[in-house]
Every structure is written in structure tokens, then in C-alpha cells.
């Protein structure tokens, strides 16, 4: 992350001058800085959600300042840096139990101030994605993942891609809306394996 701060510091003029479409860009840098200051002043720690959560890391700072549209060379650098954070399982197995993955995908809990420490977090997947066709209540913020494995197979390359994507979505899209589930510690290695299986196991309902 320090690396990215440095990167950002080197190009403030370029960033400020890049014009992008999108509502975030209506916000002036001064207003943005004031907003961050106001939040630091007006927000308080509650439960497991400490005030440290308002400290933006380098990626968040860049996405905020560029309205989620960093210049391409910077996006590439961010994506490479984020990909480097992905830790693959020591046993080399990337697919776990799709049934455990399905119940994880259903759960929307975890990491809020009303969640208790020490209880496993949910994957929040159905909040944004369609997966198993039996689940009618799914969100559309992310693309549909129905038939994901049926369409792409489950070769080692695909497994590696899906594992990496869930672990750190920013490795493939610098300012993606999707959380970095592995990098942030929201999901464990086993949980991510189970979600990989939900998408890629031929027995998973999404691939039926």
C-alpha cells in the first residue's frame, strides 16, 4: 500500500486534470477532502468497526480521487499490486465444497458493527449476483454467475482466476465495486475454496 501512496504522490497533477464521466467527478477535490475530514470527526468506533476503517488505503484513495476511473497505466499498476496480494492454498487445491459455498453465498452478514467478532463472515454473494437458478432473490450489482462453470469449464487456469477474483477483485479491475474478500480477511482460505466450488463444480446447481 505504501507503494501506491508513493505512486499517487508522483502524479497529482495528472490525476487532477483527468476528466472522466460519472457522478463522482462532480465532486471537487476540496469537497472530497472536507468529506473525509468530516467523517473522521463525526464517526465513532462501534463494536468491531473501529475508526481505523476510515483510513483509506492507497487503492481507496486513488479510486476516490479519480471517481473510480484511474488512468490506464495506473489501473494496470494497481491491478498488478493487488494480484500480488493473492495467497494460494499451500495444498494447491482451489475447489472446496459447493454446498458449503452455497450457504456462504446466501449469508449477507459479517464485518458490520452489529456483527460479533470471531463468528465466520458470510460471502454476501447473492446480494449482488445471480448464482444457483433455484434462488430467486438475487441482486444485480454484479454480473450473473449462473452456469459459470458450465460455460467455462473448471480447468486449473479457471480455478486460479476464480480463486484470485474472490480473494481480490481489484486484481482484475482496479476500482471494482466488489470487496477484496481474501485480502481484507473477510473470508478464509477454506471459504474461498468453497465459493470456487460453488461456481465451478459440475455438481453445483449453477452448472446443472
Amino acid at each position, binding site marked *: 500500500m505504501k507503494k501506491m501512496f508513493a505512486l499517487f504522490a508522483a502524479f497529482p497533477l495528472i490525476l487532477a486534470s483527468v476528466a472522466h464521466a460519472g*457522478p*463522482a467527478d*462532480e*465532486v*471537487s477535490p476540496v*469537497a*472530497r477532502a*472536507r*468529506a*473525509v475530514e*468530516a*467523517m473522521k*470527526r*463525526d*464517526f*465513532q*468506533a*462501534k463494536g468491531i*468497526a*473501529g*475508526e481505523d*476503517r*476510515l*483510513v*483509506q488505503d492507497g*487503492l*481507496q484513495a486513488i*479510486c*476516490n480521487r479519480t*471517481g473510480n476511473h484511474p488512468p490506464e497505466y495506473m489501473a494496470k499498476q494497481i491491478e498488478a499490486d493487488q494480484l500480488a496480494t493473492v495467497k494460494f492454498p499451500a495444498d494447491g487445491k482451489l475447489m472446496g465444497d459447493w454446498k458449503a459455498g452455497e450457504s456462504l453465498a*446466501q449469508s449477507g452478514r459479517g*464485518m*458490520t*458493527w*452489529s456483527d460479533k467478532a470471531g463468528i465466520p463472515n458470510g460471502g454476501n454473494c*447473492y*446480494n*449482488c449476483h*445471480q448464482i444457483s*437458478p*433455484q*434462488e*430467486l*432473490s*438475487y*441482486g*444485480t*450489482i454484479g454480473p*450473473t454467475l*449462473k452456469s459459470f462453470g458450465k460455460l467455462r469449464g473448471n480447468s486449473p487456469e479457471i480455478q486460479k482466476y476464480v480463486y484470485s477474483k474472490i480473494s481480490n477483485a*481489484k486484481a482484475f479491475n482496479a476500482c471494482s*465495486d466488489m*470487496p*477484496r474478500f481474501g485480502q*481484507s*480477511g*473477510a473470508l478464509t482460505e477454506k471459504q474461498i475454496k468453497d465459493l470456487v466450488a460453488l461456481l465451478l463444480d459440475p455438481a453445483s446447481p449453477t452448472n446443472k
Partner: protein
Amino acid sequence: MKQLPATLAIFALAFSSIASAQATKPAKAPKAAKPAAAAPAPAVAAKDETTAGIEKYREMLGDDNPAELYEARGEILWKQARGPKNVSLEQCDLGLGAGVIKGAYAQTPRYFADADRVMDIESRIVHCMMTLQGFSEADVRKRPFGSADKPSEMEDLVTYVVTQAKGAKIAPPTAHPKEKEAFELGQAMFHVRAGPYDFSCATCHGTDDKRIRLQDLPNLTKAADNRRAYPGWPAYRVSTSQVHTMQWRINDCFRQQRMPEPKYLSESVNAMITYMAVMATGAEYKGPALKR
């Protein structure tokens, strides 16, 4: 007996369909979502069928809103002489002059010279409880958000006050520099990504035609969506069986963003409300909504 206008039904419908994005689980958490033992329909058809079904559900909920129970309690609280000074809130200045309650909510948040800051309706009621009735700050901040079993006095009072603006057009003033400042602050905060999930308000409410699970997400960077969504709060939420105020709504959005808690009545929360209210200018306010 106060009669609800028939239009409330239409209103509740429209707003529940756009603004009921997030909620805590119902107290009695249904295991739920074990749908369709029957053969799954093709994705597109299933979506249309589901969406249509949800719309039908909202329509069938109709216009009987338990928020009326809150309104009735709030009216008693408003008119009752209370607090160390033993006076009622009837002379509270909600922005249209002392003692004017009708329509006042629709013209908030606004700058109040006597407090030298921008206040939303709940902040202003609290201000009156302190200045008119003599309650201490600790008293009024003790328990702003109630539960289904024990609603808070603020939920009752806010429900009563906002209901008196039924039929008014949302029109918060924007001429004062501090009102402009609050709008800009709210707008900027809307886009700040932080926390373990890298979320901002805009993550869920910055794009057209998205939904979480089956709940439609208004794109709150657009005036049209604010005009539909903003008047949908305060609301009685059936999933929590209680009325939630706008202060709560903003608080819960940040909870869902995995952020620390924005302080009750703080400049930040009032700025978010100001942003949405100004964006919603021109919408008709039809009273507390009824939502999932």
C-alpha cells in the same frame, strides 16, 4: 378518526419499490428462500415473474400503516407539557415560525440561525426539547433508535411531525451558504470509499436499475431517483416491525458499508440528508411509507 387518503397506497407502493435497499434481518428470521421445488424456469422468465410477484406483494400490503400508531403517540408527546420547564413542543420553530408544524418537515433540512447550523427535522425537534423543555443533551441522546418492542420517543415525535407535512412538496431552502455547504458535503461523502469492503454510498446507489437481492436500488446521484426514494423515509418497515427515521436510515447505510458509526444528529448525517432532500426537491410528500 383520521382518514388516510387513498393515494397513500399508491405512494407506499412506489417508494417501497425503490427505496427499500437494506435492512436488518427480521426478528423472527425466516429460514426462507427455499423456493420452487418445481423445475427452475429460464433465468429471464424467472426474473420477470419474481419482479412482478414482488410488485404484487407491495400492492397487496395496501395502505394500513402501523406508523399511525407512532403518529398518535407522537401527537400526545408533542402536546404534553414535559421536561424540566414543563412545557409542550407546540411552540417549537421547525423553520416556518414558532408553532407552525404544518408542512414544516418538507422544508428541512435547513439553516437555523439560533443554532447556527443546518438541521434535519429530528435535529430540530431535539433542539426544541433542549431549549423549550429544558431536557439535557444526555437525555435526548440516550436512546434515539428504538425497537419494535419499545419504540423511541424520537420515532414517535418524528412520525407525528412528518405526517403533518402530508401533501407538501419537498422544498428545502438552499440559499444560505451553510445550506450549500451541507449539500456539497453530503454529495462528497456519498462517494467516499473506505472500510474493509471498499464501499461508499455510491457502490449500491450510484448506478441505474440495480438491486440487492430483490430490492430495487435508487440511483441517488440522480434527482429523479431521489424524488422517488427520499419521501419514502421515515417508514414503517415490516421486516423490523417499526418506524425508522431518516437519521436511522443514514446510520444503517453506514453500518452496511462496514464503516464505524456516524454520530446521531452529526453534521455528517445532516449533510447526507440535506443532499438527498435537495436532490428530491419538487416531490410530493405523502406521509410515512410502508416497506419491506
